[in-house]
């Protein structure tokens, strides 16, 4: 059985004109990238626009890409920069806060962002936990949320997160510790015990890899 080609091999093939290789890259990374952006921005439409823009920039810059860094690092670097720019633009708008209650006692936006399209087969407990988790994640400082998502959800190693965010590795690890501690406290405050999350899959197993 042929070994699966790495991201870098696929991108090198696309540099030679192999569009199929790029399509494989797209299918492999579109969901993690979109999820990262969705968790960061809390807006599905914006997340999708930025995800498309990220891949378009990959297309434009593919010929100039040199294999000095992992493709994944390059991809999330672009996405993060776009996300930062978007956040700066949103900062000048009168955007509703994620914690602000909606009209007519509608749930807060942060409660509706994640888990809308989560597989219902995950179980009722998981569905009950997701809004709480989303709210706890949204309450994290952006730099902690960013590190958490990049490592926990996108699987980017700490060393590359350090390169990606422009800080040293120890700082990245510190942010990760703070993020995990804050999430644990937030979930405990929300009544989510470890027993409730016992049926969740093992954290070391990555899910949903396309």
């Amino acid at each position, binding site marked *: 059985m042929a070994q699966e080609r790495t991201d870098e091999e696929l991108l090198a093939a696309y540099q030679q004109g*192999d569009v199929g290789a790029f399509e494989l890259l797209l299918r492999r990374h579109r969901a993690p990238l979109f999820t990262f952006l969705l968790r960061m921005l809390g807006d599905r439409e914006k997340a999708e626009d930025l995800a498309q823009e990220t891949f378009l920039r990959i297309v434009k810059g593919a010929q100039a890409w040199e294999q000095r860094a992992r493709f994944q690092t390059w991809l999330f670097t672009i996405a993060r920069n776009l996300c930062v720019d978007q956040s700066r633009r949103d900062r000048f708008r009168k955007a509703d806060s994620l914690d602000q209650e909606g009209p007519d006692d509608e749930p807060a936006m942060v409660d509706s962002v994640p888990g809308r399209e989560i597989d219902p087969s995950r179980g009722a407990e998981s569905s009950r936990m997701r809004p709480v988790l989303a709210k706890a994640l949204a309450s994290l400082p952006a730099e902690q949320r960013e590190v958490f998502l990049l490592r926990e959800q996108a699987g980017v190693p700490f060393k590359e997160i350090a390169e990606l965010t422009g800080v040293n590795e120890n700082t990245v690890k510190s942010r990760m510790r703070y993020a995990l501690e804050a999430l644990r406290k937030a979930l405990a405050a929300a009544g989510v015990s470890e027993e409730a999350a016992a049926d969740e899959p093992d954290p070391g197993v990555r899910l*949903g890899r396309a």
Partner: protein
Amino acid sequence: MTHAESHDLLLDLAFGELDAARAAEVEQHVAGCDECRREKAALDEARRLSSPLRELEEPSPGFDEKILAAAKAQAQLTHGGNIGQVIEVAGSVQPLGLQPSSIDARAPVSVQREPRRPRWMLRAVLGGSVAVAAALALVMSTTLQDRQAQTQAAAKSFEIKIEPAKLDKDAAAKAPADQPVPAAPPPVQQKTAESHAAAPPPPEPARKKLAKREVSEAPRGGSGGDSMVEVPMDFEGPPAQSLGAAGGASAVQSGGGTGRRAQGELAANEVARRDEKQEPPPAGEKRAIAHEVPPAAKLAPMPSSVPASVPSPPPATVSAPVALSAPRPAAKAAAAAQDPGALERRAEDARHAGNYSLAAGLYRRAAALQAEAATPNAGAAAWDLAHAVECLAAEGQFDEARKVRDELVRLYPSEDTAFYAAQRALREAPNAPPDGDAVKR
């Protein structure tokens, strides 16, 4: 491994970023360290609790289309449309010795200028061009002037002045001597043209020379057909093909189309060429044909009722265009010759064409006809004489012009305007009195 080192690596251990050996060292420390064990347990709990956040979200179904289209377009742009699976080829392929061009987009732009020519060279080239153009213009103008002078000299050398009566006699005498007429000319309608009956047509060479003379002296530019004196000819002219219809000449047909009047230089050159081949004219020979004389002079002699003072037509000259035309009906010619208005029009045409001698004769003939008309028109006759004076003066025949002027004064003393016109024409004459009115009236 120290506690600090193990504490720093707990996170790496939790996320599986340590190699097996390093992970074993940390786990060994954690097993013996309560603080590190609690820390490790807290991390694992937080990860388990947040595991639902690791679930991935999928974008909308049309998410890939735009990106893939861009990827294909970029690949086509980069690889000239050869997209798809890449096939590696061993060795190098180089098309027909063409070297790939390398373009450095960031390289500094350098404008390659052509070596500038020295300014003195431009000036020299420009000056030379102007000098060459001036020399060419000078040569051309000199050549044209010489040719024009030669043409005028040649025309003067051929100018013949012969009395009409003598012309007829000469023609009659030479005709049998030169060449017998190959075919009997068709009978001429000469009931009214007595002189034509007495004068047989000139022989063929003579006719050709006549044609040459006529055309060479005819006014240039193709206008002048009307200024010619159309003389009834009793021979059939050269074929129309040989004469040609070009050169601004028009063939005037008469008498059922058997005759042609040659006009135009092309026809004349053709006739002259054939003439020179067959019979070169003897040196100094002055040939004349009585064709320039207005036919009316022969066909309708001056009636005796005309006052004796009315001058007779001037001596005929062959400078008038001679026609190789077919005979016109004599009656028509006679009628035209008797019409002073027609004569005046023809005289005017001749004058406009520069044929002043012919014009003067026609004006004088018209004046005579005006005077002998049933209702004499003194004014018109006086003006005809005045115009004759003008034409003679223009031709340089000042003595003859003075005679006509004197005649004008004598016959029509009351026609002051015509007299002054004649007098003005004589101002340029040599030995002319300073005052134009010096002539005794």
